[in-house]
């Protein structure tokens, strides 16, 4: 029975798709294979793109396609209680793919599993600096209590995937979830196959089966969609994105910047940091080394994020002014001639070597003494995160930060607070503002985040923000799909239509 269904679907997909439009199997080619299919690791993109919302669902879901904000998924509605805790009313009649039904106990178990010290779930990191407990009220109701009070708890819960209570604490390789698809085949190194579920609670997606393939080379990925070996490649190279009929660019949530280490002379001088910012001709990169659609960054978070500040302006490119600032600093005894090292990660983002070489050249033009050093990922991490090495010279760490969660709190603390692991400075005013913003709600929250963004950019001149990057997807013409910012980390099969 099942076999004939798949066979039928295959037929539909391959030969009769135009006649009987609507449903069928598809093939998706990704750059990197998932090493696990662990639901609590679904916030990592190589895992998330396969299982997030396809196999494993969350209570809430952030709409990155439209502007609906936070939408219900497994939770039907939620509200903040007077004591600051949050109550979630769960959807009823939902079944896991193993046949068990979904209830509040599963939610509690899923949350506790994330926080367990028997494993290292990635989503645990969003709950740092707070204690949260889940209490089952009844089968369909659950309360989350947080200390300190978490205004964005529903948003945070869009990052926690729900697994059945029977799931072991250790990492698993065969996820069971409530989503519209279930894992039917995983041949490591070759493919992962998700098959549509008949007993899914929601609308049935047009995609009946999705096969994931993995190719490291972007040119090969693009070629595969072109030759029909795959239907969708969510990340191809800008260079290969030459066919307007199939290739889409989308603002992804990645922000490229140079993290400045304020602790070391001459970078401890704000004039020097400002000069760095003014010496880079960001415009010149657009349409050359950086795709045309990229946006010059004024914050570490991309524009759709809460509190993004339109009043903060990009530093103007003015090499002469930069030089002047440097001279001023020099006159005050700042050792501006000290060689400054840019540390970048190989293959961190497209054209990283060329971009960094160009930045080096531009900074040198303005009178800086810049060295460039490329390192592999493990070494890069040592430069990027604390504790920093003793006895280091002045350094700029080129990095890319991803925040598609809609709220700056996922970035600001780490990058700018004194305690933040990637923060290159310590400023009590910034610390205080971040703390207040994290606790605030509504417009107040947006306003405070805007203040942080302005303060960090204009006064502290914390870092050299460069670009909000653009991603490219190649989508076969038989699909009806428009990639969005979310495509970077999730790829909901239910959003894909078949023509």
């Amino acid at each position, binding site marked *: 029975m099942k076999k004939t269904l798949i066979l039928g679907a295959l037929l539909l997909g391959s030969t009769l798709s135009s006649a009987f439009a609507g449903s069928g199997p598809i093939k998706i080619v990704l750059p990197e294979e998932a090493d696990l299919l662990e639901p609590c690791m679904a916030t990592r993109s190589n895992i998330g793109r396969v299982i997030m919302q396809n196999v494993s669902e969350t209570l809430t879901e952030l709409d990155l396609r439209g502007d609906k904000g936070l939408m219900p998924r497994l939770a039907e509605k939620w509200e903040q209680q007077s004591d600051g805790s949050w109550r979630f009313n769960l959807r009823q009649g939902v079944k896991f793919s193993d046949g068990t039904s979904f209830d509040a106990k599963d939610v509690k178990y899923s949350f506790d599993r994330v926080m367990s010290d028997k494993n290292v779930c990635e989503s645990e990191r969003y709950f740092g600096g707070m204690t949260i407990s889940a209490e089952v009220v009844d089968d369909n109701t659950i309360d989350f209590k947080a200390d300190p009070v978490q205004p964005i708890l529903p948003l945070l819960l869009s990052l926690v995937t729900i697994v059945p209570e029977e799931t072991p604490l250790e990492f698993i390789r065969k996820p069971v979830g409530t989503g519209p698809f279930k894992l039917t085949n995983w041949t490591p190194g070759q493919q992962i196959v998700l098959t549509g579920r008949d007993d899914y609670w929601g609308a049935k997606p047009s995609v009946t089966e999705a096969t994931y393939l993995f190719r490291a080379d972007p040119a090969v990925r693009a070629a595969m969609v072109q030759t029909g070996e795959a239907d969708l490649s969510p990340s191809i190279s800008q260079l290969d994105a030459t066919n307007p009929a199939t290739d889409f660019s989308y603002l992804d949530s990645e922000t490229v910047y140079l993290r400045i280490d304020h602790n070391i002379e001459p970078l401890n001088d704000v004039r020097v940091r400002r000069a760095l910012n003014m010496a880079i001709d960001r415009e010149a990169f657009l349409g050359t*080394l950086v795709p045309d659609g990229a946006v010059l960054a004024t914050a570490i978070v991309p524009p759709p994020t809460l509190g993004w500040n339109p009043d903060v302006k990009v530093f103007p490119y003015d090499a002469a002014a930069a030089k002047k600032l440097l001279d001023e600093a020099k006159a005050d005894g700042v050792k501006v001639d000290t060689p400054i090292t840019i540390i970048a990660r*190989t293959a961190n983002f497209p054209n990283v070597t060329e971009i960094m070489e160009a930045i*080096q*050249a531009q900074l040198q033009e303005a009178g800086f003494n810049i060295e460039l050093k490329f390192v*592999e990922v*493990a070494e890069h991490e040592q430069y990027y995160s604390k504790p920093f090495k003793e006895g280091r010279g002045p350094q700029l760490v080129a990095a890319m930060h991803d925040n598609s969660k809609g709220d700056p709190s996922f970035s600001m603390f780490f990058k700018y607070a004194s305690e933040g692991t990637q923060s290159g400075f310590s400023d009590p005013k910034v610390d205080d503002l971040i703390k207040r913003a994290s606790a605030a709600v509504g417009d107040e929250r947006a306003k405070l985040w805007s203040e942080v963004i302005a303060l960090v950019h204009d006064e502290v001149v914390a870092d050299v923000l460069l670009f909000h990057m653009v991603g490219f997807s190649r989508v076969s013409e038989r699909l009806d799909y428009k990639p969005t910012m979310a495509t970077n980390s999730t790829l909901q099969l239910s959003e894909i239509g078949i023509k």
Partner: protein
Amino acid sequence: MTIPSTETVIPHEPHFVVRMGRMLWADKFALCAAIFLVVVLVIAIIGPTWLGELATKQNLRGRNLPPFDWERGWVWWMGADALGRPLFARIIVATQNTLMVAAGAVVLSAVIGTVLGLVAGFSSPRINQVIMRLADVIMSFPSLLIAVIVLYVLGSSILNLILVLSITRIPVYLRTTRAEVLEIRERMFVQAARVMGASNKRIVFRHILPVVLPTLTTLATLDFAYVMLAESALSFLGIGIQPPEITWGLMISQGRQYLTNAWWLSLWPGLAIILTTLSLNLLSNWLRIALDPVQRWRLEMKGRKNG
């Protein structure tokens, strides 16, 4: 069939350099190769000071300029790279690093490998065993892991890259040398030297090494190509030489992504590697004959006939 050997007195032999020159003239392929390599060598020495500035001058508006634009200066004849830098100039500047890495790695591994091979072939079975097991370990040690370890612990630099590449090639020389030594040490002329009371050192360096050397030279020239490609592959995997340093291998791997829309980025450096290794091969074939007194006549005869 024995070919009668001549007993007529050959006139006094000309000076070594003159002889080599004549023999080179006799083999036109080797001559071209030698000329090409001399040019490459000169370029390697003067390249960075001569064109260093031009090769790093960026022009984002003139990126991926196609080649064969004869209107512009000769440095632009090969086109421009992704940052608008002239490819011809970059290839010339990259010559120094490329040759330094390749020659450094080949020479280092050849010297260490040969010395160890001589020792292994000529000393007690126990030392021989130790050296051979060591060679086995290095052989099965993934070269990528060596690269990651060395570059991580010692930092990424040209010198360390030479180190990485040479470590992985040591066993090749070691094994070849040892095998040859084991065979040559039984030859009559080695026995004859021993009867005269020659020391082990003398036997190794005066009698065995010269016989092994042609084999090693051939191996080394082949390795030259191998090392250049390995360096390129490391760059491809992101653990080799990194910008702003340039080598031909790095240029190929950087140009790789433009293969479909700007093929010249990776073609020219690739051609440079192929021509260099081809020349080295031709020259080493010639050298093997020219340095062998028994074979030399082939070239000298040809020279006479041609001249």
